[in-house]
């Protein structure tokens, strides 16, 4: 429709049409939700008949969508109606997180139900979280969440290393190395992760000798079916101050890096910004270490009776889960790394060689920066998978988010809110990983253009 022939009435109509459509749609939505179920089902039938009969494309566009929306609403209502009906029979509230109140805004978010005493023990926690059976379900849930986060982050880190090494090894000109990498990838990739986890846990880590007969390396490293105990660093009162100083060190080092980088750009002479930055940071760190009076102490684990004390103790549950996740995801990352490197045109390597770059330089400055760009999106998927797969911890008795949720369901019978809560938590973590990786992806893309 041309602008010249448009009357004011038409213009008004065009401006109001989206609003009218939204209003109509909203009203239909509300009607579908609030009116009796019979009405919702009748709407589906009427809209479907209208969609079949309508011959005008614009009308059909409307009726088809109306029929679809009505059908979704009706099915959803039947399902939720049935659910609340059964939950009422069981005397349960479907969504105890929401409470209707007398005042505005009439609905209140509450965690009351999770404030009850949990009453179950959690064998290990992460990031120094304290927890006893007397704490609430919510506290238990936080411990589970921290455990999931710890194993996911470590797993992502280790799987990336294993995967990159295996992926590059598969492309190695050394026949033996590439064969070994191929066998690793093709074997572990085609066996379900759950089988591997249970194997690591029941057939390897639980089969280790007991604490008294276990491996004891120089009274410092202990390996047994109870734990893997390593020397670790303990903290004293000056630790907080030192961490603060380290933060300052990072800022100063960043400044030094920027200065040296600018100098290199302006003079054209190599000014080693990374070495300078690292050096600055190290100097500040050491000075801080001395100034705050040994904030860190070296701590060796000790065998006391049948258990260990001090040092870093890693449970077999955690080790089994971490090893399983790392090796399994590593195979997929290896394939991604291999594919991305192979996707770089051969001319790039040849051109780099013609410029006189060494093998390592070719990889560092020419191949990897380009391969990285292809790698990031599929790598993101693998990170997401690893995080979601960490929920298989339930099979190796590691108390993660899902397992704490499972125990809570068993104790309270509140399946609906807990599953919803667990799902939302996983969704949120998925979103965070996606956001981080998308940022990385955008940065890489910007630099190249």
């Amino acid at each position, binding site marked *: 429709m041309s602008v010249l022939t448009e009357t004011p009435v038409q213009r008004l109509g065009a401006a109001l049409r989206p609003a009218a459509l939204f209003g109509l749609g909203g009203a239909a939505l509300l009607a579908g939700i609030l009116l009796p179920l019979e009405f919702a089902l009748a709407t589906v039938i009427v809209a479907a008949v209208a969609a079949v009969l309508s011959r005008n494309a614009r009308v059909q566009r409307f009726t088809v969508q109306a029929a679809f929306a009505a059908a979704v609403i009706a099915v959803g209502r039947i399902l939720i109606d049935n*659910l609340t009906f059964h939950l009422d029979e069981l005397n349960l509230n479907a969504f105890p997180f929401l409470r209707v109140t007398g005042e505005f805004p009439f609905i209140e978010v509450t965690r009351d139900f999770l404030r009850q005493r949990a009453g179950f023990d959690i064998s290990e926690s992460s990031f120094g979280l304290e927890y006893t059976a007397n704490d609430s379900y919510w506290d238990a849930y936080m411990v589970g969440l921290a455990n999931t986060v710890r194993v996911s982050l470590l797993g992502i880190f280790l799987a990336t290393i294993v995967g990159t090494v295996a992926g590059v090894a598969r492309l190695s000109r*050394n026949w033996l190395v590439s064969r070994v990498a191929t066998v690793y990838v093709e074997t572990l990739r085609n066996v379900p992760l*759950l089988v591997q986890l249970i194997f690591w846990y029941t057939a390897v880590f639980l089969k280790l000798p007991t604490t008294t007969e276990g491996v004891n390396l120089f009274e410092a490293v202990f390996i047994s079916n109870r734990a893997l105990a390593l020397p670790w660093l303990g903290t004293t009162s000056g630790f907080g101050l030192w961490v603060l100083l380290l933060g300052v060190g990072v800022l100063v080092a960043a400044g030094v890096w920027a200065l040296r980088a600018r100098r290199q750009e302006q003079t054209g002479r190599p000014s080693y910004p990374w070495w300078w930055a690292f050096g600055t940071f190290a100097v500040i760190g050491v000075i801080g270490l001395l100034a705050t009076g040994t904030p860190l102490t070296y701590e060796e684990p000790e065998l006391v009776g049948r258990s260990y004390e001090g040092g870093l103790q890693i449970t077999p549950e955690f080790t089994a889960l971490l090893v399983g996740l790392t090796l399994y995801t590593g195979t997929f990352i290896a394939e991604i790394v291999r594919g991305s490197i192979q996707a770089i045109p051969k001319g790039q390597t040849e051109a780099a060689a013609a410029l006189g770059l060494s093998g390592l330089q070719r990889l560092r400055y020419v191949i990897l920066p380009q391969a990285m760009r292809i790698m990031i999106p599929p790598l993101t998927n693998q990170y997401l998978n690893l995080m979601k797969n960490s929920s298989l911890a339930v099979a190796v008795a590691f108390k993660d988010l899902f397992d704490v949720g499972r125990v809570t*369901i068993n104790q309270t019978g509140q399946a609906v809110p807990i599953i919803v809560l667990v799902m939302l938590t996983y969704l949120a973590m998925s979103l965070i990983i996606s956001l981080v990786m998308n940022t990385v992806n955008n940065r890489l893309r910007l630099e190249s253009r």
Partner: protein
Amino acid sequence: MTATTPPVAEPLTVRRARLWARENLFGSVPNTLLTIVTAVFLAAAVWGVFRFVFFTAEWEVVDANRRLFFVGRFPSDETWRIWVVLFTVAGLAGLSWGLWSGIGMKLAALGLGGLALVFAFMAEGDVAWSTAAIVALFTGAYAAARWLVRTTGYAGPARNLAVAGWLASFVLATLLLREVNTALWGGLLLTMTLAIVGIVASFPLGVLLAVGRTSTYPVIRLFCVGYIELIRGVPLITLLFTAKFILPLMVERERELSLLGIDVTFPGVEMDDVLRAMAAITIFSSAYLAEIVRGGLQAVPKGQVEAAKALGLGTARILGLIVLPQALRAVIPAIVGQFIALFKDTSLVVIIGLTELLRAGQQVTAQPAFIGKQAEALLFVALIYWVVAFSMSRASQQLERTLGVGER
């Protein structure tokens, strides 16, 4: 002049091997070092595995429990139902191989035939005849199909018949196996049932979701995006838990409604545990398939749709005859990859208490005679999963090559 003895000519193969080794193993100092280190580790690993498999391990646990591994607690009197299904599958696989020889179908047919054989070897009792019958059916059907293709012109109708046969076999298998309480299904039987039902059910659902996501109707698009992203954001076991604990509450209720003046009774759906697991797996896998198919849809050039419109085709026909065939063909390898993932994911149903293959592997080590034999049992289970998953991925590579995906 001293007579020099001519150097003894090195046999060609030895020289070739020497050259090859120098090029591939000992090209430079770092390379040689790498070779030696790897070789030492490899030797240690191979020796360890060898010693375990042939000396330390006691495979009695597997041999004594073959039936549990393969069909679980499926009653012996009813085993004939599985046999009938296997005979049908073997015959159809042979037939399909003969009819479609040339493309990767033959690998798929071989895989299915091989699977039928695995079951045959593992069932208890007198399996010799049944195994022979399966082999005979497979080869007989293959020969018949080859003869049909070569000497008569009925290959086309025969292919349609074969497709119909596969569909019919699915119905037949459902009717036959349904008679046995699903609580008794187990082992590889249950694993394969879950995988096949998951594949068959999630594929059309995934295609529908992908088409919906690329639809020009915002309401439909919004729904599909929401479904896909929600499902892809959560782990499968949360869905299995939902299916186990919440889904029954949503569907198991009989209701009577008056619809436009007519009384209608909605029967409640009874869902046993196996059906719940199937629902969860299908819902989960369809979201991933949808994303794969969407990739294929985006790869179809826009001109194809425009040309089809210009010819006067309707939306459904454009989709079914023009867009989908091209889109699906482009993403076959990824689809097979998703099916492999689905097959491996069926192992997760142990967490909601189903006794599939992995659970069988855990159960046998609870028997008094086999306590502590987890390694043997789990390695055997892993081997079965590996054989199926690995052959599927090889078949997919073969298919990719014969279809020439990406090389047109």
